[in-house]
């Protein structure tokens, strides 16, 4: 197979596939921009810098290395989103690969195609990382001094861009290779034993962490956080399938169809559910941290205005990053639903004959997105606020403190509302795909 054929066959052509690659490219571009930021800060060298220009996070050498580490972690998290995005539409891609295999493609060639698909997204992401960093540094430059954590780019930084393009392309190659494991692009489902282990071990770790954190400090809190992540990871698939089965038993046709859609392929919904739950958890933790700092500032005079702005900037920027991840995750969910619409267009078109119209299908899609996003976000925020950062930082405010509970209630409601608003916006964004899916012409499509 020539390189031209490889690129030609790897390039996505269906609208749903293009959206998938665009989302992955955007995630990798953002990831690359964060890496460029880390490299840019590293280029400032060692030693203290003037904190009249730079944020304290950059000016103080100890914090600078911490900021670099945070930017790298955020870049890795955003890269994880690219993996999620590239995993979407598995059924349609498996059919495409099967058709190529029938035409005489070897397993090696199929692997090359999967890898090239992800590598092209990586290369495009790397090339877009430079402009993305410029935009981000301009945006951060307009913020108050403490929040200016991304220094403006200089001409010499263009040299840093080259390794980032190479790294992003390499990341694409790695993602493509991982996705093609076992000869298919399908992700490996979690085994029952792994799931059961997580369901038992998660709560045990949370309880252990909460009980020991007053004595063991950070170690106990970290155990609780690890337990929460494990619990989300193990239960999201079960939750989605339980929800799907329950909706399938409903007398309401919209609920019934929503249940069928969730059960047809629960994996993308489960992954996004887990991701949103985890993001919600971290946002809740950070919000709790801000509340604790503000509470400290109002009750004691020891905390200076600078340190309050220092802490709130740290927490606020982290929340901004997490909200961005939540938005990208919801976008991934939307692409997933659009993909499912393309995949099931024959079945949906046949529903037209039964009297299903566009508003009804929009209601179904909105419900599908709502039941995945809203509870995950709300639950994540609730747990995050109650057992989050206040425990990590030594537990000045207990989990059942009235203020904490009030904050948890507000954030839970906000998460629920955000989930509903996201679903409504998605319904609007997907209106063309919905109209196409219901087109009776699809009954002819193979």
């Amino acid at each position, binding site marked *: 197979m020539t390189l031209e054929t490889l690129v*030609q066959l790897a390039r996505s052509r269906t609208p749903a596939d293009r959206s998938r690659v665009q989302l992955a490219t955007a995630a990798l571009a953002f990831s690359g921009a964060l890496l460029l930021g880390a490299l840019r800060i590293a280029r400032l060298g060692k030693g203290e810098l003037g904190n009249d220009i730079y944020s304290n996070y950059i000016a103080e050498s100890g914090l600078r290395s911490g900021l670099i580490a945070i930017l790298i972690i955020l870049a890795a998290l955003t890269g994880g989103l690219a993996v999620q995005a590239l995993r979407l539409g598995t059924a349609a891609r498996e059919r495409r690969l099967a*058709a*190529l295999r*029938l*035409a*005489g493609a*070897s*397993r090696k*060639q199929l692997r090359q195609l999967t890898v090239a698909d992800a590598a092209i997204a990586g290369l495009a992401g790397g090339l877009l990382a430079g402009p993305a960093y410029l935009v981000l540094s301009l945006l951060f430059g307009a913020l108050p001094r403490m929040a200016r954590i991304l220094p403006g780019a200089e001409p010499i930084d263009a040299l840093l861009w080259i390794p980032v393009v190479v790294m992003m392309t390499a990341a694409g190659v790695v993602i493509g290779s991982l996705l093609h494991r076992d000869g298919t692009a399908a992700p490996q489902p979690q085994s029952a034993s792994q799931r059961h282990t997580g369901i038992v071990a998660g709560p045990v770790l949370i309880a252990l962490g909460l009980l020991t954190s007053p004595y063991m400090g950070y170690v106990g809190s970290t155990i609780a956080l690890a337990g929460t992540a494990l619990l989300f990871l193990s239960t999201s698939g079960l939750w989605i399938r339980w929800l799907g089965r329950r909706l399938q038993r409903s007398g309401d046709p919209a609920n019934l169809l929503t249940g069928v859609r969730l059960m047809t392929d629960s994996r993308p919904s489960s992954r996004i559910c887990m991701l949103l739950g985890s993001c919600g958890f971290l946002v809740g933790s950070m919000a709790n941290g801000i509340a604790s700092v503000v509470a400290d500032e109002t009750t004691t005079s020891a905390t200076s205005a600078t340190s309050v702005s220092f802490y709130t900037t740290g927490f606020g920027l982290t929340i901004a990053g997490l909200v961005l991840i939540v938005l990208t995750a919801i976008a991934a969910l939307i692409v997933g639903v659009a993909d499912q619409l393309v995949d099931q267009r024959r079945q949906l078109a046949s529903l037209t004959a039964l009297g299903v119209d566009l508003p009804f299908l929009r209601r179904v899609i909105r419900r599908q997105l709502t039941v995945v996003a809203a509870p995950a976000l709300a639950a994540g925020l609730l747990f995050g606020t109650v057992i989050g950062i206040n425990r990590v930082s030594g537990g000045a405010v207990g989990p059942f403190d009235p203020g904490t509970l009030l904050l948890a209630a507000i954030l839970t409601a906000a998460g629920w509302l955000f989930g509903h608003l996201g679903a409504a916006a998605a319904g609007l964004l997907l209106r063309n795909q919905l109209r196409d899916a219901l087109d009776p012409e699809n009954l002819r499509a193979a």
Partner: protein
Amino acid sequence: MNAVLELEKVEYAYRRNTALRGVSLQLKPGEVVAVTGASGCGKSTLLHCAAGILTPDAGVVQVDGQDLAELPEEQRAALRRTKVGVVLQFGQLVPDLPLVDNVALPLLLGGHERGEAHQAARRWLDQVGIAEDADAVPAELSGGQTQRAAVARALITGPSVVLADEPTGSLDSRAGQELLDVLLEAARYRGAALLMVTHDNLVAASADREIRLRDGLIQHEVAL
């Protein structure tokens, strides 16, 4: 004349269900053989084993004298691409590729230049009567047109063996007959052996020989 396709005591089972219980058959160049039988008797499994899509649990499959089991995966794929053409009932075309690319695929995957592969594909599309649809994607065409494209793709590399699984199954009788004519003419013109799995007695009647399968075994074999 040496057989171009030879199956010897081929066995295959899907977990609990045994689909083939030691089937043997030979096809000579230019010969047309129809495999018939009730649903679930192992017809499609036989064809998939012959194409190298499935690996038999026991027995030997030889294409042009080469034992498929003895070839490494890469060479087996290359052999399938060059010596074997496959036509299924539906779903074998890549949905997002125009017909010209779909037909050119075996050549493109074999390392041919795009221009050269497209030229050959357009010639074959012309031969099966759908040259004007070269730039359309499968969803824009009728079942008969996509099946013609599948025939063109199966024949583009000049295979020794063409395997067709219910090639007219998704078509009405007129479109089915037209496709069958194209397939038979093209196969006979190229001197390729044609193995067709079919439920249709009229399709079976156009073959030189009919093999009837029952419960994974050859029930009888008739020269027509």
